[in-house]
């Protein structure tokens, strides 16, 4: 945090000054570790084992915040007697189909609750479409009354299931798996639990070190379980804080430039399941469920009205048919592989540099070299614009400029001070930026570019009678422009996002005002209120020094300017603060007519619903939430310790090894995440795991990180004089022990090799990296920043070239925080010799053309070698048009295994 979010870290230092204890768990010793009270080095990719160990410590010692857990979580809910835990199935949960590598989730449901959305085909669809990014805010659907045992004694209540699931995650197991000293681990357990409860709260902060894993969503889930057990959610000083890495990456998720989402986490309609407006709306609101998603019809119709204006009417289902339909995985990695296969014609890059910043840089560049045209909009001449003249593949002959047909337009962009608009920062707060100066030369904003591109495309199609062109021609695209360059007004667009009454133009104040009859429109329901009272609330700048500590009058946070989500949980079930010290939002019986919720923040609850409210039998929607159900977007109003729906890889987080690991999974026979997304093709080979043999060819673990002085792929830092001077060179940090073992010299060169590529870096030998003892042997870990490429004022090899593509099944984010590698002294070879070096490693490590190791490593369906799955669609994929080989060479399990039999089974 001190490295990548330094100014945010001032609040950690502030807390420390007031007596907070800071714990830093990280493979690397960083500027954060230097300020922490306790630094705990950990083996990369073992966080679920570590956190699961803390869950076990809490449950074995009865340290949970019992009142909170019983009232506000699903700990008391009773699960179906068909559920079988991963503890009994060697790392798989009940319902697993080894053929599709997905789960049939009927057995995961609560007792007496009809299993919904549980068909196996459904999970295929969900993995393909990264559905967890919708579930992120959608919560679970719970129909009817769930059986509960508030004594938490029932053997099938969530609490007892949780307890059994983590019983083997003992301090010894944590030490053995994570390479952590058991005393250090127990110190973390004590600190966390002692600092949680009525009087105290603990915050958990994470970043892409958690998301960029093949089991990343479950990392965060484990954190959520702990924070719920300890009563740290919805309370001041608590929470799980995602520190996001780009100025408006939160905004670009809320108003998504993402394939599977529409604004406000509405799903992009799917050709199979959402063939009509009603089906689409019902898929979101889940009729019968409780909570605020019950109004999904209004949210969806307001979006359609914002898109197609007067053309969207109740008679034509508000132009729902105009929405294109997805049919599977259309994520960025799949798209890049499709580029290599010649299926994509044109590509826009908008302030993003995948030639350096995305996993598997070679695939990225080969994809770009196989397009008809590429439009790059950026401040600088980044590597993604110049791959045709300075990609590493030019040297190896894989890209020949004279043979590369891609037409490239480099369109200079306006900077953040040359346009006005809002960024949404990492805590969901929108902040308006004023424009300072005009952009120079041909530099233009994205607002300008897309408005005019749309105008020109519409103009070209204006005489078309084709049905396919109606969505463009009927689009509500009348944005008035101003100034010399005919720039649209960002404030006009923000008003449309906020929403307004169609007849009067009056801006809506809250999404509760959205109607499903077409009389209101709004482009992103969760942002409704940002233009409350016709005032740009995001532009509010009341100085922090003139406000209380919540500072609610600086900018505007969605939803409804709430600064802490689910803050009803900061009061006890009766509505009183859990303690004076941690008072935040509470019920004031004397306020208003019959009492109101009040406090420092905007209550994240119906303002006048008393704590004693109990829904009438059969009530659903908002009325179905009781006065003490704080988690108002969940189908049962409860925080989910156990997740019966919505996750592809299981209802409880379970330790799986990273896809590339030098170790066997010490806990289960199932080695890695069995449901992960894989693209098994020759240009995406992975290093072998111990199970497949020859993993010793890539004996070391590597991870990646940012430096304070650079920003992601370097597009905003390597072209700046000061920053380039502060961090001039690509390096690999190694321990003295590894340096001695491999003959690496400080400030000399090293070459790092994987099955994809080899890169070179300066060697930084420090004792900040320590070899760890794992499963009785020493493991060396190294790390590299990933900021460099061939362009800019300072250049170097790209760390992302080392990674292959394996994705988390829930959100399709790649595993790029952990891989295995070899490290050798000296510079890498160039030209063909580089390819030969990598091929030599592949040959020695048993990476054989056309043969791929199985993902399922336990149970009756354990895979042997097979021929690959280039599209990652699997045998029952939603679309088979790209072909697929489901054939498996049976009886070839564990080829060339040089390791012992599976443990832990």
């Amino acid at each position: 945090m001190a490295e990548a979010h330094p100014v945010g870290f001032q609040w950690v230092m502030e807390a420390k000054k007031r007596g907070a204890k800071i714990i830093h768990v990280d493979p690397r010793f960083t500027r954060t570790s230097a300020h922490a009270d306790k630094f705990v080095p950990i083996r990369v990719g073992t966080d679920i084992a570590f956190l699961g160990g803390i869950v076990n410590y809490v449950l074995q010692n009865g340290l949970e915040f019992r009142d909170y857990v019983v009232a506000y979580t699903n700990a008391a809910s009773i699960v179906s007697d068909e559920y079988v835990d991963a503890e009994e199935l060697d790392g798989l949960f009940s319902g697993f189909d080894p053929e599709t590598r997905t789960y049939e989730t009927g057995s995961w449901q609560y007792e007496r609750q009809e299993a919904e959305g549980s068909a196996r085909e459904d999970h295929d669809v969900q993995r393909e479409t990264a559905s967890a990014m919708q579930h992120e805010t959608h919560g679970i659907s719970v129909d009817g009354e769930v059986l509960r045992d508030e004594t938490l004694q029932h053997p099938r209540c969530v609490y007892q299931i949780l307890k059994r699931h983590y019983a083997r995650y003992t301090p010894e197991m944590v030490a053995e798996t994570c390479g952590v000293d058991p005393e250090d681990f127990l110190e973390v357990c004590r600190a966390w639990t002692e600092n949680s409860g009525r009087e105290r709260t603990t915050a958990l902060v994470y970043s892409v070190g958690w998301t960029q894993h093949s089991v990343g969503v479950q990392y965060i889930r484990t954190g959520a379980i702990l924070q719920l057990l300890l009563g740290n959610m919805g309370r001041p000083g608590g929470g799980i804080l995602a520190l996001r890495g780009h100025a408006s990456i939160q905004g670009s998720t809320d108003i998504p430039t993402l394939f599977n989402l529409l604004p406000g986490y509405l799903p992009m309609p799917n050709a199979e399941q959402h063939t009509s407006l009603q089906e689409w709306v019902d898929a979101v609101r889940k009729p019968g469920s409780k909570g605020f998603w019950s109004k999904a019809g209004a949210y969806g119709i307001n979006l359609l009205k914002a898109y197609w204006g007067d053309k969207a009417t109740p008679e034509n289902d508000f132009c729902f048919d105009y929405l294109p339909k997805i049919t599977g995985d259309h994520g960025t990695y799949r798209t890049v592989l499709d580029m290599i296969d010649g299926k994509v014609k044109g590509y826009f890059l908008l302030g993003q540099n995948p030639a350096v910043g995305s996993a598997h840089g070679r695939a990225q560049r080969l994809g770009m070299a196989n397009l008809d045209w590429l439009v790059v909009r950026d401040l600088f001449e980044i590597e993604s614009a110049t791959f045709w003249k300075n990609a590493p593949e030019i040297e190896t002959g894989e890209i020949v400029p004279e043979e590369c047909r891609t037409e490239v337009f480099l369109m200079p962009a306006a900077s953040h001070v040359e346009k006005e608009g809002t960024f949404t920062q990492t805590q969901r707060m929108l902040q308006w930026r004023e424009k300072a100066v005009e952009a120079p030369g041909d530099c233009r904003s994205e607002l300008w570019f897309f408005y005019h591109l749309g105008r020109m495309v519409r103009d070209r199609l204006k005489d078309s009678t084709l049905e396919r062109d109606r969505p463009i021609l009927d689009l509500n695209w009348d944005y008035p422009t101003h100034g010399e360059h005919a720039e649209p007004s960002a404030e006009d667009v923000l008003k449309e996002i906020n929403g307004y009454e169609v007849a009067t133009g009056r801006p809506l104040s809250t999404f509760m005002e959205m109607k499903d009859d077409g009389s209101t429109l709004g482009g992103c329901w969760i942002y409704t209120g940002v233009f409350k009272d016709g005032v740009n609330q995001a532009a509010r700048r009341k100085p922090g020094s003139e406000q209380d500590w919540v500072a609610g009058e600086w900018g505007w946070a969605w939803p409804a300017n709430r600064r802490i989500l689910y803050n009803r949980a900061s009061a006890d079930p009766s509505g009183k603060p859990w303690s004076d010290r941690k008072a935040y939002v509470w019920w004031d019986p004397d306020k208003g007519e019959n009492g109101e919720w009040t406090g420092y923040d905007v209550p994240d609850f119906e303002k006048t619903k008393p704590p004693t409210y109990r829904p009438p039998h059969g009530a659903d929607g908002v009325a179905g939430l009781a006065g003490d159900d704080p988690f108002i977007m969940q189908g049962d109003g409860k925080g989910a310790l156990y997740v019966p729906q919505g996750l592809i890889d299981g209802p409880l987080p379970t330790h799986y090894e990273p896809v590339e690991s030098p170790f066997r999974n010490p806990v289960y026979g199932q080695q890695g995440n069995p449901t992960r997304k894989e693209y098994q093709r020759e240009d995406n080979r992975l290093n072998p795991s111990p199970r497949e043999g020859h993993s010793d060819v890539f004996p070391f673990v590597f991870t990646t990180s940012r430096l304070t002085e650079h920003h992601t792929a370097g597009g905003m830092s390597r072209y700046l004089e000061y920053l380039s001077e502060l961090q001039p060179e690509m390096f690999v940090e190694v321990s003295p022990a590894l340096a001695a073992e491999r003959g690496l010299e400080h400030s000399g060169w090293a070459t790092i090799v994987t099955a994809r590529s080899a890169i070179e870096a300066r060697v930084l030998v420090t004792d900040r990296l320590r070899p760890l003892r794992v499963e009785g042997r020493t493991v060396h870990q190294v790390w590299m920043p990933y900021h460099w490429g061939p362009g800019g004022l300072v250049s170097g090899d790209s760390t992302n070239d080392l990674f292959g593509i394996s994705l988390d099944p829930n959100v399709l984010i790649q595993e790029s925080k952990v891989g295995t590698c070899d490290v050798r002294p000296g510079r890498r070879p160039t030209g063909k010799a580089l390819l030969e070096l990598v091929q030599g490693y592949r040959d020695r490590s048993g990476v054989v053309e056309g043969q791929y190791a199985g993902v399922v490593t336990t149970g009756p369906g354990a895979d042997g070698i097979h021929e690959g799955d280039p599209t990652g669609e699997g045998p029952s994929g939603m679309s088979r048009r790209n072909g697929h080989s489901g054939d498996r060479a049976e009886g070839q399990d564990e080829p060339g295994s040089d390791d012992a039999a599976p443990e832990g089974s």
Partner: protein
Amino acid sequence: MGRSFLGWPVLRQLSGRDPLGRGPAVRSARTDSISPRIATADRVAKSVCPYCAVGCGQKVFVKDERVIQIEGDPDSPVSRGRLCPKGSASKNLVTSSMRQTKVRYRRPYATEWEDLDLDVAMNMIADRVVKARNDTWQDIDADGRKVRRTLGIASLGGATLDNEENYLIKKLFTAMGAIQIENQARI
């Protein structure tokens, strides 16, 4: 105080009201004669740092229609006036001599860039979008399902852009039937 020894800082520090030497005692005539460059700014724009997602407040100082300085905004309850090395270098981001200010065009099979008029480039891009969309249009997919889309046009980026920009990008691409629209949030 003239040039007599009475003006020595150490004497002023010991005898005056600034014993710690952090205020008037250490001011020189030279200090008094200069002013910070922001003092002569024509205006100040309230802005936000463009790097990570913490959202630190920035004050952008403008003189003669040029950015002369970018500083942290002390009013911000997020950042209290602080900026990290990147945020502090953001004036350099805006004014860097390496900034691309002209459209550049690489013809198929070319080995060098050439210049292109902005308006011409926009028209060429619009032509290519229309053509790629036409050439790859699907009313139904291979399994006969209604999809109304193109898989021939993809986009990556948005995390560094404004909400209003992302909104228009998604709106336009969705209307055109382009669905492979992605950004850093997937990465």
